[in-house]
């Protein structure tokens, strides 16, 4: 059953007779929505006067499924939330379980987590830059360049976990298995090749006149609204707000690594693009340090019980800086083998709160790139 359309806003004063507002359903099957997502847009000519997002096309009640399963059995389901970044989804979940049950993680496993987490950030941001430029009309080339690099990272994930996208690799108390022989060398090669790819990508695009004309001053997000609306991740930092959970919480081993966090000035689509490019360069620095310093040792805490884990009654909220923003898991245990309450705090859903504010007054073609610059994945929005 389709929801009744929202009420039309009053016409602007001085509207010429015969001038009508038009309602357009952008989606759910529209290439620019990156999944099954609908925006009911009300247009005055080409200008957006109202936008209502409609969710739920990919809803499968992930949380209810997880509440019926053991703590271990929820890990493969978290892969399917943000299906581009399965490693960071695993990380956020296992971090929350480790908080809930007070589990320790060996040092080598922490290094592996940082490595796969930053590789995930690289592939997410590279894909996003490609998709965003595709939305702007740069058909094919940037996206295929980005996917070529993504493929190399997916090869690394495949040799590590057996699966390219649904890695299911991290466990509470460590990682499922140690790195295969030669993996670190292969990873160092991929990281060494990523910098030149970024140089090439930027030489083609960042100074491009059309890209700048299309994205500067579009979809401006003021910093106070961004904070109040709970926007996190690159979208928040593009508005100039100093907030990166890797720096604030210093979870894992991020305290040990030397890296900077880029901040935007205007908060427009171009800044959101540029912040991601600079974040990739900083991720390369973290990867260089981690691949150099990783120690030998076990990758699982011998005391961690994967099967039949029964944490003490209580609750815990753990969060990480996923490539899209703050990804958190809220777990309530009643002492049983499965969580009493399991909740995903999805960055994509909360970041969409300000979609209408960013789009009002812009043309419908800009809606597509504003949505693209927020970076959503519907597996996580709808859960």
């Amino acid at each position, binding site marked *: 059953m389709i929801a009744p359309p929202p009420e039309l806003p009053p016409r602007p004063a001085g509207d010429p007779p015969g001038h009508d507002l038009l309602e357009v359903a952008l989606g759910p099957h529209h290439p620019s929505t990156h999944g099954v997502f609908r925006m009911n847009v009300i247009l005055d000519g080409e200008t957006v006067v109202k936008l209502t997002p409609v969710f739920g096309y990919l809803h499968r*009640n992930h949380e209810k499924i997880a509440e019926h399963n053991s703590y271990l059995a929820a890990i493969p389901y978290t892969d399917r939330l943000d299906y581009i970044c399965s490693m960071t989804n695993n990380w956020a979940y296992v971090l929350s379980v480790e908080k809930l049950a007070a589990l320790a993680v060996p040092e080598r496993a922490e290094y592996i987590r940082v490595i796969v987490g930053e590789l995930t950030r690289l592939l997410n941001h590279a894909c996003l830059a490609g998709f965003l430029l595709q939305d702007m009309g740069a058909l094919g080339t940037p996206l295929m360049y980005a996917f070529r690099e993504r493929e190399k990272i997916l090869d690394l994930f495949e040799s590590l976990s057996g699966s390219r996208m649904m890695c299911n690799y991290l466990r509470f108390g460590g990682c499922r298995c140690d790195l295969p022989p030669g993996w670190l060398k292969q990873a160092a090669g991929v990281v060494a090749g990523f910098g030149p790819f970024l140089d090439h990508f930027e030489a083609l695009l960042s100074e491009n006149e059309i890209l700048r004309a299309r994205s500067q001053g579009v979809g401006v997000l003021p910093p106070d609204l961004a*904070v*109040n609306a709970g926007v996190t991740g690159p979208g928040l930092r593009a508005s100039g707000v*100093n907030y990166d959970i890797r720096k604030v919480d210093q979870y894992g081993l991020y305290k040990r690594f030397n890296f900077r966090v880029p901040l935007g*000035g205007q908060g427009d689509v171009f800044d959101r693009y540029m912040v991601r490019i600079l974040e990739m360069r900083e991720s390369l620095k973290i990867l260089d340090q981690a691949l150099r310093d990783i120690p030998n040792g076990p990758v699982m805490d011998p005391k961690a019980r994967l099967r039949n884990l029964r944490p003490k009654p*209580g609750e815990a909220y753990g969060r990480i800086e996923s490539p899209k923003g703050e990804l958190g898991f809220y777990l309530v245990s009643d002492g049983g083998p499965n969580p009493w309450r399991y909740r995903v705090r999805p960055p994509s859903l909360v970041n969409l709160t*300000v979609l209408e504010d960013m789009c009002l007054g812009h043309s419908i073609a800009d809606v597509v790139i504003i949505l693209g610059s927020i970076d959503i994945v519907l597996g996580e929005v709808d859960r």
Partner: protein
Amino acid sequence: MTWWDPASANPGPPMPTPEQIKERIAAAFPGAPVELVPNGSPAGQPSLLLEPGRARDIARFLRDDPELRFDYASNVTGVDWPERLEKPKPGEPAARKTPAFLEAVYHLYSMALGHGPLVIRLRTGDRAAHVTLPSLTPVWRSCEFQEREIFDLFGIIFDGHPDLRRLLMWDNFAGHPMRKDYAPARDPEAEP
């Protein structure tokens, strides 16, 4: 473009403990009951149970107080607590029944001062007739979709929410799937 300046990121002293925050609330809102709910897990993170009647004013206070400045409501969710039998404590003759209620849980952080989380909870009177809580969307807009999701999946009605509609299920769906006693239709093709 600029870069992260660590000096401006975490300038303040460490966050006041939940006990201290409770006392600050008690000083600012005399007569408003605030209860500290302990957390049995090693994670720490005890929470403050607010009385729904004053909750929105207290939330504004938590956001605007210069030493707290919880300007960012991160995770907003519901928990269902049906009636349960508690094991009798030593000296008690029989098992006690805990009252049934629904709960809204908010995890607050401060982006300005770099601290958090503070967990606040609101509880409904029961699970059937008295399920209205004040909406905190006027204080933090990040609650807008998440409160809609709680309304959809748990059936808590948020008073003062600007646009309280179902978020994930369709509009004429009956029931609230995240409640513990929700039973799905036997026919998987059925649209309740």
